[in-house]
């Protein structure tokens, strides 16, 4: 059967008004899905260090690389990681976006600025996902030097949010 000859494909598209005027019926359900994920060895230590205001990575001597976030195994060579490596809280913007909408497409007046930040001391350079702050959106550039802005110690909980955001490094 040649598609070119098919005049009517199945499938009926609806409009929002069909729902508003109750022309079509539907059921609603909010899933009750709650979890408590075990952080484990590597991420457990990562969170504990964040609570102390520090970043930590891991090194694989075999592959000669230092990465963050930590993991107990090296995914390149499939050997256990060799050691913990304290890392500075500074880095370089690898890539970024200026996001003007929320996930459900509501407009933001001030954009969020997510970025992948290559952390100093990693090798070859690798990054983590975080937000940029204390910077004009139009001034952000790939390659920009940034440093972490931490919450005060009493507010830190052992979370990636213990870093409020990264801001441009102030020279001098």
């Amino acid at each position, binding site marked *: *059967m*040649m*598609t*070119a*000859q*098919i005049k009517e*494909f*199945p*499938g*009926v*598209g*609806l*409009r*929002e008004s069909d729902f508003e005027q109750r022309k*079509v019926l539907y059921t*609603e*359900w909010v*899933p009750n899905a709650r*979890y408590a*994920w075990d*952080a484990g060895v590597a*991420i457990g230590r*990562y*969170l504990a260090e964040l609570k102390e205001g520090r970043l930590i990575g891991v090194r694989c001597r075999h592959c000669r690389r230092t*990465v963050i*976030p930590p*993991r107990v195994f090296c*995914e390149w060579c499939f050997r256990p990681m060799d050691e913990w490596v304290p890392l500075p809280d500074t880095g370089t913007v*690898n*890539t*970024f*976006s*200026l*996001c*003007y*909408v*929320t*996930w*459900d*497409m509501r407009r933001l007046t001030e*954009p*969020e600025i*997510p*970025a*992948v930040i290559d952390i100093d001391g990693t090798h070859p350079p*690798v*990054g*983590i*996902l*975080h*937000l940029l702050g204390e910077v004009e959106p139009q001034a952000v550039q*790939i390659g920009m030097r940034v440093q972490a802005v931490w919450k005060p110690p009493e507010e830190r909980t052992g*979370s*990636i*949010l213990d870093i409020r955001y990264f801001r441009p490094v102030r020279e001098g």
Partner: protein
Amino acid sequence: MGMRKVAVVGAGMTKFVRRALETGKELAFEAAKMALDSCELTLQQVDCVVHGTAPDAFDGVHMKGEYLADGSGAWRKPYTRCYVGGGTGVFAPIHGWYHVASGLFDICLVVCEEKMSSCQPHPQGAFLTIFDHTTERPLGPNLLWIFALEMNRYMHTYGLSKRDIALVSVKNKRNAADHPCSLLGDREITVEDVLNSEVLAWPVQRLDVSPVTDGAVAVVLAAEHVARRITDKPVWIEGVGWNLDTTYWTNRDLCYPRYVENAARMAYEMAGISEPRKQIHIAEPYDPFDYKELHHLEGLLLFDRGKAPEATALGITQRDGDLPVCPSGGLLGVGNPIAAAGLMKVAELFWQLRGEAGARQVPGQPRRGVAQAWGDLMQVGTVIVMGV
């Protein structure tokens, strides 16, 4: 070791719509029935069924492969669902391929369904939980972030402009105007329209993005001896490949999809393709965002790194160009019901290679095409090579 030859012998699809009257089961049924009718088979003749569908959070059903089983024709049959995120639509026929190539089954029905509209208030909600639950989700990331981060890195690395990239959206939405199932086909759209559309997550703008869509697609696969009885125009699956990169996406350079290259090399090797640029006549790469088509054309080794935009500007990827790309209209034009959209590309190759694509028909009797999908955290490539 010689492998059994497997052909696509039938295909069917529903219209791609923003919000379908039909349930997910009904969409799956409509596509499956049309695929079987197209090759004059009955469900009794089907030995096994495979299903591809993306996150359960869209349809709002846990274990949704089980829920969709009867709509897909799997009642009292061997049935499995496969899942590689956005790559699922091209993986499902690969999953079907090894069912038949193994020698265990002769006829396999492959169904892909997505009913994204069930997820309220916005289907993007299903993507909030794709990020690492401990190290990333607390930051409140949404799906647009990762595309924007990847697009920016791609543009920065190769010095590309938004205008270069917007041409893809224009091409595909215009191509889709010829597709009877399309949601966003638009013959009149211009580059300026794309560049002037609302900025969502810079550099991503509204018309760079494919729409939320409901729809289903199905194809029928058959072993060689059966295929030749079913049709005088079987379209052979000549190569399959798939590949998944590391979860640690912030540890990778996002400028190039190495996983797509690996998947393509696997499929080309199986198909005996040594010079893809000469031996492939049509490409249906995955285009949920306009820059992704370019990224994927490079990963498929059809253009040098960073050079796909230039080829697009030269018209090479137009339907009547040297290498027609997304003659269907792609996800940007026809619509993006995730897994169904990937399988739509396989169905498009089936129709194109049989010369049955009507107004969308690529000139010059193409003999071999490649379809590709992508998914996860910029991580998975699935590739299928088909030929006559």
